[in-house]
């Protein structure tokens, strides 16, 4: 009986908690949920990113007293990179704060897909910076999605442009073999459509090779690569899969400088475990690279010198940490943009959506924010939810990332028709209304 009582008591506490979870809140706060992962198979990459995001919000609160006086209320929820956990986190957090979630960063392509279905209903924009659905840059169909800074189609295109440049032009790719080693999930599959398109255009042979979650078992994949001798290997991995790929490449003697990772396969946790084997490995950059910039000085002054930083100060220049900063900054600036129209108060997701769609960061503004050298100017519009499609390529020299290319722009002549077709198909399948962007202000 004692056990029954304990069980009943526990159930009562749980029920009470679930119903009154949303307690008293301060009124002048803008709530931002953080769907991140600091545990599980993808934690090595999730942790630095989450640290960057958390630090930037803290910085805005510490340095500026919030966004025009509206404090940021930030709460993390660990998704473990699992879609259903991610959805649960989203549902749990979306209604918090005086106005609900301003926007959501799913930090997983799978979760992005799931939230894409929920965003129009809940009226909360989804920012998938450098990931997510490639066709979602079409704001006329995907009103609530913002794959800022670049989609996977852009990433793949930039890498192919870089390869073509080194080979001496796209026509030289004829007859070459390109292999894509990808994480077997929507994330890894995204670039395939573009690469198939490019292969058709330029006559190179393209082979996609899936690697099953979590990606520690790649022996067969790399034996095949050794036997087929492709000219280039593109890598679309995440978490431990990245370092494993590089190690296996070394083990079969595939030249690392012929390997190109996407920007999620180009951070320190991806190359360090492979030690010497990673030297020469290339990766695309989501604009920014590693290193410390203007904003880092503020981070040191307002957070780390006061012992309030989440990470260690020497780690704040790492690629994924910087990406966290960029990600948070774009969100904050979107809210700021929206405040110009709706007033300096906590905003709803719908209002913030307008802010993201009208986000316009000039070079001067980026410098002011301390992001000069990390980002190029970007301008989002109804038609273009990506904002910018620029990228560079970097190479690991054994100790640090070195930028080895100039800026590329993904080729809209190739991308735009694909985006339009895919968005149209989505709208038809789902029987969705299409916005007319020419009528938007």
């Amino acid at each position, binding site marked *: 009986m004692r056990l*029954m009582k304990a069980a009943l008591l526990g159930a009562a506490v749980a029920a009470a*908690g679930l119903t009154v979870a949303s307690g008293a809140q301060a009124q002048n706060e803008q709530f931002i949920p953080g769907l991140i992962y600091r545990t599980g198979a993808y934690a090595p990459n999730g942790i630095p990113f989450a640290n960057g995001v958390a630090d930037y919000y803290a910085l805005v609160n510490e340095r500026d007293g919030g966004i025009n006086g509206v404090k940021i209320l930030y709460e993390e929820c660990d998704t473990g990179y699992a*879609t*259903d956990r991610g959805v649960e986190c989203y549902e*749990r957090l979306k209604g918090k704060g005086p106005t609900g979630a301003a926007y959501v960063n799913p930090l997983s392509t799978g979760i992005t*897909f*799931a939230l*894409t279905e929920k965003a129009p209903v809940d009226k909360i924009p989804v920012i998938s910076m450098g990931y997510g659905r490639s066709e979602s840059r079409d704001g006329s169909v995907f009103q609530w999605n913002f794959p800022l800074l670049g989609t996977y189609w852009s990433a793949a295109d930039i890498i192919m442009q870089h390869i073509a440049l080194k080979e001496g032009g796209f026509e030289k790719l004829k007859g070459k073999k390109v292999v894509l080693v990808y994480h077997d999930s929507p994330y890894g599959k995204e670039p395939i459509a573009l690469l198939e398109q490019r292969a058709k255009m330029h006559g190179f042979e393209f082979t996609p090779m899936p690697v099953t979650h979590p990606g520690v078992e790649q022996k067969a994949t790399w034996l095949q690569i050794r036997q087929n001798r492709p000219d280039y290997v593109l890598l679309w991995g995440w978490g431990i899969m990245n370092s494993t790929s590089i190690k296996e490449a070394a083990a079969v003697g595939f030249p690392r400088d012929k390997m190109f990772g996407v920007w999620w396969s180009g951070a320190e946790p991806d190359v360090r475990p492979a030690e010497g084997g990673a030297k020469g490995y290339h990766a695309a950059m989501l604009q920014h690279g590693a290193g410390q910039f203007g904003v880092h000085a503020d981070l040191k002054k307002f957070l780390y010198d006061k012992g309030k930083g989440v990470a260690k100060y020497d780690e704040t220049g790492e690629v994924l940490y910087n990406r966290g900063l960029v990600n948070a900054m774009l969100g904050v600036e979107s809210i700021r943009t929206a405040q110009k129209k709706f007033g300096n108060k906590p905003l709803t997701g719908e209002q913030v959506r307008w802010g993201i769609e009208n986000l316009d960061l000039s070079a001067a503004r980026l410098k002011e924010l301390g992001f000069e050298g990390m980002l190029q100017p970007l301008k989002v519009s109804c038609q273009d939810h990506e904002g910018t499609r620029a990228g560079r390529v970097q190479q690991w020299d054994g100790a640090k990332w070195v930028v080895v290319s100039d800026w590329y722009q993904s080729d809209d002549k190739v991308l735009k028709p694909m985006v339009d077709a895919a968005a149209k198909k*989505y709208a038809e399948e789902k029987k969705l209304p299409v916005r007319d962007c020419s009528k938007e202000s």
Partner: protein
Amino acid sequence: MLYREAGQFKTTYGADQQIFPILQDRIFVLAVIAAALLVVPLFASQYLYTEILIPFLILSLAAIGLNILVGYCGQVSLGTGGFMAVGAYAAYNLWLRVPEANNLIVVFLFGGLMSAAVGILFGIPSLRIKGFYLAVATLASQFFLDWLFARVKWLTNYTPSGSVAVGDTSAFGWKIDTPMERYLFILAFVVVATVVAKNLVRGHIGRSWMAIRDMDIAAEIIGFRPLRTKLTAFAVSSFFIGIAGAMWAFLRLGAWEPLAFDINRSFQILFMVIIGGLGSLLGSFLGAAFIVLTPIVLNQLPGWFGVKMSTALLSHLEFMVFGAMIVFFLIVEPHGLARLWAIAKEKLRLWPFPH
């Protein structure tokens, strides 16, 4: 004094063979269903619907399906996720390709039937393979089906990412859209399915399953055909699981990829069946409630008490406490929550005079 069966006499065999022969049980169950139907919509928040009630109901249905196979027929399966995926993708393809069938009930039943067919196929080895060998062998179906839905492009309508999405869901012209509508629809479906499951397990088909479970050799000797009996169990079980999978995809996720039905899903549902109680339909519900609620509660518990904790530590603690609770419950009552419930009822019957 309230829970007494004394004085309730059965005068016909029909009366004795009702689902709930005791009057108070009948009233209680009807009250629960009525409350779920009428009272819950009065106060439930969206979070309660989408993250607790809907997952709970759908996974209860999957657990009932698995319980038929494991609890009633004694065939351990670790392939539940795969069969859910069959249901989900079959339903998706019917929904996509046959516009006339845009009726969730039709679509779900189709998902269930396809899943049953695949279940029969993967049930065939059960004639020769038993126990843990069978359990591990069913993983073959799990991994194969996962792979199939990730690779065969037609099944996902050639979407570049392999992730599919559904919209515009309705049944007989009723547009099932808001969380409350989805909840009510699922509730209705699950109640009907539970009654069907109960009818099957209390009839001669259910007895044939239990006979195979308790002693397969003796069952064969008194005339049951082992293969046919086992395949019926596989089919019925997969049917329920397939419907649950289709519901999970259509009414819970809306957009999904094969990872939504990976091996962790299989383990999750097996947990529900074991913690809830093998061979108990009530247990399937209790187990589902436990497995759905525990991680959510554990994750939020420190927050309710104002304890600030790093996200990582919180997640790790959630893992640890969840694991420990599973072990604890298995030690306290290996026959599951349903047995605890039965003991409580037994006590109630004697209350307030325990001797």
